[in-house]
Every structure is written in C-alpha cells, then in structure tokens.
C-alpha cells in the first residue's frame, strides 16, 4: 500500500522531470539547427554540477554569449556544445568522447586543470584543436609538466599557467615596489598553489626580493593565526597569498585581529572574495591581485560584455566567463583569417588553427595584443587590480 504510493509518486516525478527535460532539450536543438549547415562544431567541457559548478556554468554562459554574437555577425558560423565533467578526469574523458561522437571540430577544452590534464592526450590523439579558458596547470599543455617540455602542440591556454602567475607576481611586486620583504602563505597539498609558489620563489630570488617567511598549510585548516604570526614576526611588508579566496578571507581576518598592518597580494584564485557571503569587505581594502578581468573596467568591450551577460543570465560575469568569451572569439578570428571551411577535414582545421594561433594577435576582454607561442602558452600583460572602497580599481 505504502510502497505503491511512493512508487507512483516517484514515477510521476520522473515523468514530469523527463517532460521538462525533453522540452528544454528541444529548445537547445532548435537553437543549434538555427545555425547554418556550414557551422563549425565547437565543443567544451566543465563542471556544471558538483563543487566547482560556478566555474563551468560561467564558462558555458560566456562561450554561448560569444557564439551568439559571432553568428549574428555572419562571417563565421559556430555551433556550440558544452558537456558536464564535474571537474573530474574520468568524467571529462567521457564528456570528450560524447563530443567526439557529436563531431566536434575544435574545442574550448576542459575548464579545470585536473580534467584538462586527463583530456589533453585525447585531443592530441584525435588531432582536434583545443584552447582552454582556465585550465592553468602546465600539465594541460605539456606532456612533461615538470620540465615544461614535450608540448601537446594542439592544446592552447587562454589563461596564464600557474608558474607564469608566480613569475608575473614577483615581477609586479618588484617593479612596482609593493614591498621588499615578502611573506608567503600557500596551500602545500594543492597543485595550483604550490605551482605558483615554487616559481614565485625562484623569480623572487632572481629579482632580489627577500622571502622572509614561507608558510604552507593543508586543505581544511581552520586556524591561520600561526601562519599570520610567523609573517608578522619576520617583518614581511607584503604577504603573498597564491590561494583561493576562502582561506584568504580567514587570513585577512586573522591579520586584522593581530593588528598586523601589511599589504596582501593574491593571484586569480582571489577573484570572488568580494562576493563571498558573510565576508567583511573592509578587510580586503588595499588587497592587490593579479586577475585578467574585472567587470568594473571602463573600456567599451568589457562594458558591452558585462551588459549583455547581465541581460542574458542575470548576474555579473566572473573571469571564467570572460576567458571563455575570449576563447570563442579567438577561435572565430583564427577560423576567419585562415579561410578553412566547416566541411574540411578536422585535421586540416586543426593545422590551420595551430598556424593562425601562433601567428595572430588577439584583442579581448582579458588582455590586448595577446599572442601564443608554439607550445600553446599565452603571452599577455598581467593586469593587477587593487581593492578600494569595496571595488576593483586598476593598480597602475
């Protein structure tokens, strides 16, 4: 009796869900058929569910917006399909194969590094061009990541690699005289954080910056007082935080508690700290960070993007959306300049894209005069922002 009720309820729910799903499915297919037959098939994967869903959804939205705009211009036609990979290598491989079944001809790769390093060999194997918006680990573009040698050749990055962020941070601190005695608090069980820190240390040594304190913490740490105190005792006048924004917010709060007045410097993982729930934004006052994109920038390109994005999706875009938007535009520019057609063989399209990417200059949201080397590494000027009155202001 009881069971049959539950069962019926479950069935009804399942049916309702499948109906909803079908209807949403039909709208997406309608969207894709509206593109002409001569459309290039662009794939991509990222976490649409799970812990890092914010990143994947931002990339999906940013890329879809770009595809819509490019199709409206009419020079190149694109068709876009984005699969969920839950930021997991295994799921990313399945997502990749789903896209391969669909007939993907070029891709914006995987959104996260962990998934990216699992699928890069697949892209190489099938000779499909990919440019990842935010997979920043060197393992995404290099087969031998530790020596940064043996590049895949057809996998490119829109963002800086982690080591390059470390170098750029040290350069910025040294050039702009943010400080001379540097304390570092980093996460020692995280690829992103250790990757940045190791290169930062080497570069800082070269530039004559004095690294007075190195404090590594593990994931799940809740009390940062020891690390902050070590930096304070060592007399660091700038504290480098190559970490994500959640632990950084606690470090900032701890510094205030200890009455430690210093400058803090973060990388792109710090982006989002102002939107964090329950965070006192006055703590972040004067915080420097390297980020390729800030939604408050005054230039026309950013203003238009932010306006259109808000109209379409109802919230302010984060850097992941901007990176994805740039990826699609860069692919479109390369396709247009090379003159390949969607009916050409995929390997021809890949060869053309590789040739264009290593020779062209691209202007986008996340940087102007962007170029790529043959390894797939991006070269663009790092942008630094500083937080003033609760908003990003360009640090220059």
């Amino acid at each position, binding site marked *: 009796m009881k*069971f049959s009720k*539950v*069962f019926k309820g*479950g069935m009804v*729910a*399942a049916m309702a*869900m*499948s109906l*909803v*799903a079908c209807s*949403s*499915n039909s709208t*997406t297919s309608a969207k894709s058929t509206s593109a002409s037959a001569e459309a290039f098939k662009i794939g991509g994967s990222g976490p*649409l*569910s799970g812990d890092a869903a914010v990143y994947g959804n931002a990339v999906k939205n940013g890329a879809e917006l770009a595809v819509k705009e490019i199709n409206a211009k009419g020079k190149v036609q694109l068709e876009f399909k984005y*699969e*969920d990979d839950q930021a*997991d*290598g*295994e799921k990313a*491989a*399945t997502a*990749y*194969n*789903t896209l*391969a*079944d669909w007939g993907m001809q070029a891709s914006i790769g995987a959104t996260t590094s*962990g998934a990216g*390093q*699992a699928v*890069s*060999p697949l892209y190489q194997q099938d000779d499909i061009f990919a440019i990842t918006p935010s997979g920043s*680990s060197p*393992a995404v573009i290099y*087969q*031998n*990541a*530790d*020596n940064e040698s*043996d590049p895949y050749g057809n996998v490119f990055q829109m963002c800086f690699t982690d080591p390059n962020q470390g170098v750029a941070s040290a350069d910025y601190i040294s050039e702009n005289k943010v400080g001379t005695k540097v304390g570092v608090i980093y996460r*020692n*069980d*995280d*690829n992103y954080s*250790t*990757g940045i820190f*190791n290169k930062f240390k080497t570069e800082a040594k070269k530039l004559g910056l004095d690294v007075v304190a190195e404090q590594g913490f*593990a994931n799940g740490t809740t009390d940062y007082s020891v690390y902050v105190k070590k930096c304070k005792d060592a007399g660091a006048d700038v504290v480098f935080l190559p970490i994500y924004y959640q632990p950084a917010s606690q470090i900032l709060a701890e510094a205030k508690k200890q009455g430690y007045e210093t400058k803090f410097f973060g990388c792109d993982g710090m982006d989002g700290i102002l939107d964090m729930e329950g965070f006192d934004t006055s703590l972040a006052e004067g915080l420097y960070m390297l980020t390729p994109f800030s939604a408050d920038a005054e230039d026309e390109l950013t203003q238009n993007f932010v306006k259109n994005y808000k109209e379409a999706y109802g919230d302010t875009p984060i850097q992941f959306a901007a990176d994805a938007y740039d990826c699609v535009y860069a692919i479109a520019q390369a396709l247009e300049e090379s003159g390949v057609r969607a009916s050409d063989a995929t390997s021809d399209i890949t060869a053309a894209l590789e040739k264009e990417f290593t020779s062209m200059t691209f202007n986008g949201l996340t940087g102007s005069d962007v170029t790529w080397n043959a390894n797939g590494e991006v070269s663009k000027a790092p942008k630094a922002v500083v937080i003033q009155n609760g908003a990003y202001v360009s640090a220059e």
Partner: protein
Amino acid sequence: MKLVKSLFGPKTRGRSISFALVIVAYIVISILQSAGSIPRMISSLLVPVCCYIVAAIGLNMNVGISGELNLGQAGFMSVGGFSAAITNAVLLNTVSNDFVRLLICIVIGALIAGFVGWLISIPVLKLEGDYLAIVTLAFGQIIMSLMNNLYVGFDADGIHFGFINNTMQLGEGGKMIVSGPMGVTGNKMISTFTVGFILILISLLVVYNIIYSKEGRAIQACRDNKIAAETIGIKVSSTKTLAFVVSSALGGAAGALYMMNYSSVAATKFDFNTSILILVYVVLGGLGNMTGTLISTSVLVLLPEMLRFLSSYRMLVYAIVLIVMMIVTNNEQIKTFFEKFKKQKGVQAHE
C-alpha cells in the same frame, strides 16, 4: 550430466550465473564493437566499468561475506594505481609489449595494495562495527594525503622519491612520474577492455573459491555469530584478515587498471566519495551477492553518462533512480514475490 548438475546445482547457481553474465556481456560487446555500432562515449566507459566492478567485488568480499563495513576501498585503489603507474614508467623501455607490461602493473598493484591491506588489517580487525568503519575511513584519508605529497622521479640512476617538497634533481632524460598534488602525469595508456574482462573473471574465481572453501565458511561463521565461531575454535581476527587482504588486493588491481586507462590521475580522485560510491554499488547489488554487484555497478556507472541527453536534469534523474532502486530492492512484497519464484524453480530442479 553430473558435471552440468554440479555447475548449475542450487548451491552454485549464483556462481554460474555470474560467470555466464560476464562472458555473454563480453562477447556481445566485442561483436558490437567490431561491427562499429558502439559510440565512442560508451566504449570509453568499458574499462572504468570493469575497474569499478573489480573494486566492488573486492569490497563485497569484505562487507558482504566478512561483514566488516570498510569505508576505505578507494585508498587501496590509490595504492594499487600509484604503484602500477610507477611500474609502468620504469618498465616502459625494458618491456615493450603493452599487454605484458599491463599484466605486470596489475599484479604489482594488487600485491602492494594487498600488503598495505594486511598491515592495516592488524590494528583494524581488532575493532568491530562502527569503530572499524571509522578506522578504515581514516586509513583511506591518510593514504590520500600521503599520495598527495608524494614525488617520484625516474632517470638513468633509478627511482627517486621525495616527500612534501620536490627537491629532487633528475639527470638527463629524467622524468617525473608522480608529482605531488598534480598526481600521476604523462602515464602511457595501456588498459584494454579484454584485460578488464579477464580481471573480472579472475576476481570472481578468487572470491567464489574462497566463499565455497573451508576458510570461506569460517569467515561467514565469524560474520553470523562471532561467539559461536570462537567456541568451535575459529580464531576470528586472523580469519577475517584473509577477507580483508583479498578485498584490498582486488581494490589494488582495480586501481591499477583504472590508472593505466588515463594519462593523468590526481590522488584526490581516490577520495572518500569514491569509497562511498563503491559501497553504494555493493549495497544496491546486495551484500554477498556477486551477480547483483556486477549488474548494479554496470548500471550505476553507465547511467549518469547515458542520461547526458537530459543535460542539467541528469543528476536529478540519477538520484531518483537510486532512490527508486533502494525502495524496490528493500520492499517486502517484491522480495517475497521473487522468493516464491525462486522456490518454484528450486522444486522443479529437485524433481
């Protein structure tokens, strides 16, 4: 006739069904694959399915047959996987045949995971019930943390190990195999569906042979009534060690096969969630029921991927299917219905 009876007799029918299922599935998939009618999305899932099945069979040995709740199976997969990755990189130039190298990797992965399982079983099996579950959970986490800080490099001088900080200077032509939080990188992908199929057959053979042996009956006696088992002279903790070690070795073999299917796997892949996932396969398939484990693992690994066409609703539908499965498999009416069905068949067989 006698042979057929002994194969399909009521006692060992479960075993025959398991083997038949695996072999038929393998033949059908191989035929479809050679005819080219399997999309790449599905064929890329075949090896992971095999891995999860082997890990789940191993865990079922522990949870179902031995009755000890183990929440750290992913830890053993991790040990097996990482040792296999190191073996693969070291043997890359000396053993050129991929198939042979894969077999060596799996054997070494299983042996090392089995050894670690034996070490862990010494403190763990002195505990019972919830306490045992918590300790296995902790060991799973410890293994993950260790792997997350492990650096292994290989050059002309041999293997170099580092811990927490990567300080090693590799010689000419040297290559990092495991680099801390980045995990295994640049692994040569050599896993095949055929090896996965063979591995499932071997693990079924091992598990069924233990179940129907003297030791197996002793293990089950310890599970059902510890005191009664002790009174007839069975040493409970050492008896359970066998089940625990077999379980961890199979986990290690599964991890090795899994690792060899990807070029890069981070240690965080084998976290608590993966352990729970495998436990879910075992529980839904039925404790101690290997055929059930085969089916539930295949369905639950494939389902979220088959539902991709539902886009954002797929995880919701997956959850609903899980809940419905749990309700259905635990429902008394349905159970008695199947019991009747079984009994009728049993009667016919006796006649």
